[in-house]
């Protein structure tokens, strides 16, 4: 077994996931390889020493105090976005967005009409240069359709 294979098995060895045969091969390699043995000892002992942090206990009456909090007002997203300042900002943003959408839509409509007119000019339906008729739609009553 190579050093790399052994090191790839460190986690499975720590988590007890090696089969009997794999574990035996693992131990045989460590017994004969000082580098891997050193690495394994550092790797395993850093994991094992974590157990020395035994943790804390909740204080007396924890469950009762928690139950008393069930009726606390919810701190949910509505409470901050429904503030007046945020509400007005949202309204203003919506108005601007609608205006931009309307403007873009209008321009698209104009471009479409220009394209139609250009096609009709190309087909000889109009004698004028396209440049002349390009802005016709923007003139009041300039639409010949």
């Amino acid at each position, binding site marked *: 077994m190579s050093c790399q294979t052994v090191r790839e098995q460190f986690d499975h060895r720590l988590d007890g996931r090696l089969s009997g045969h794999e574990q035996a091969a693992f131990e045989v390699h460590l017994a004969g390889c000082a580098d891997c043995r050193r690495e394994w000892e550092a790797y395993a002992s850093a*994991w094992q020493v974590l157990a020395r942090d035994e*943790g804390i206990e*909740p*204080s007396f009456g924890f469950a009762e105090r928690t139950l008393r909090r069930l009726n606390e007002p*919810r701190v949910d997203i509505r409470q901050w976005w429904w503030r007046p300042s945020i509400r007005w900002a949202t309204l203003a943003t919506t108005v601007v967005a609608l205006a931009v959408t309307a403007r873009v839509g209008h321009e698209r409509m104009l471009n479409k009409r220009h394209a139609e007119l250009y096609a009709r000019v190309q087909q000889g339906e109009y004698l004028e240069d396209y440049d002349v008729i390009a802005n016709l739609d923007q003139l009041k009553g300039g639409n010949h359709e």
Partner: protein
Amino acid sequence: MTSSDSDVALMLRVREGDTDALRELIERHQRTVINTIHRAIGDASEAEDLTQRVFVQVYRSAKRYKPTAKFTTWLFTITRNTILNEHRRRSRHPSESLDALQEPRDSESAGWQLPDTTMRDPAQEAVERELRERIKEAVRELPEPQRTAVILCRYEGLSYEEIAEVLGCSVSATKSLLHRARLALKDKLRGYC
């Protein structure tokens, strides 16, 4: 209610608004949740407050609980979300401790450090205390989600599959997270073990 009621059975009762069932669930899992949070954020009093929020959230979200899900996986997912929210809040308001935002709480409400009855020699105690501090720091310094993976694996004994579910990633990604975390811990704790 009997102590043999499963978590799922209790949760089904919580879904119907039964607060006795919730109390039982709290008593079963409070230590696990408070320690998971404490190991992630490092402050015992804030950990206790956030643990209470976790159980309040369990109650409020009970209708969304599906009995097919293992209760502890669901609980750890809420716990992790609560921790992530707290980290986000802290990064937005670095100077504010959670305590500053709370109503004054009972003096008994801070988490208790377990008394160590095995140590008597003051010098040895000091060494042990330093070791524990270094361990807590090393875990806390791990980036998310390595930190959660370590806490759930080392302290709560969850399987790779359960950790993957809590983290919302694959089992192979979980293994890789644990491997990188262990390499980092090996460096951080060099000279302490």
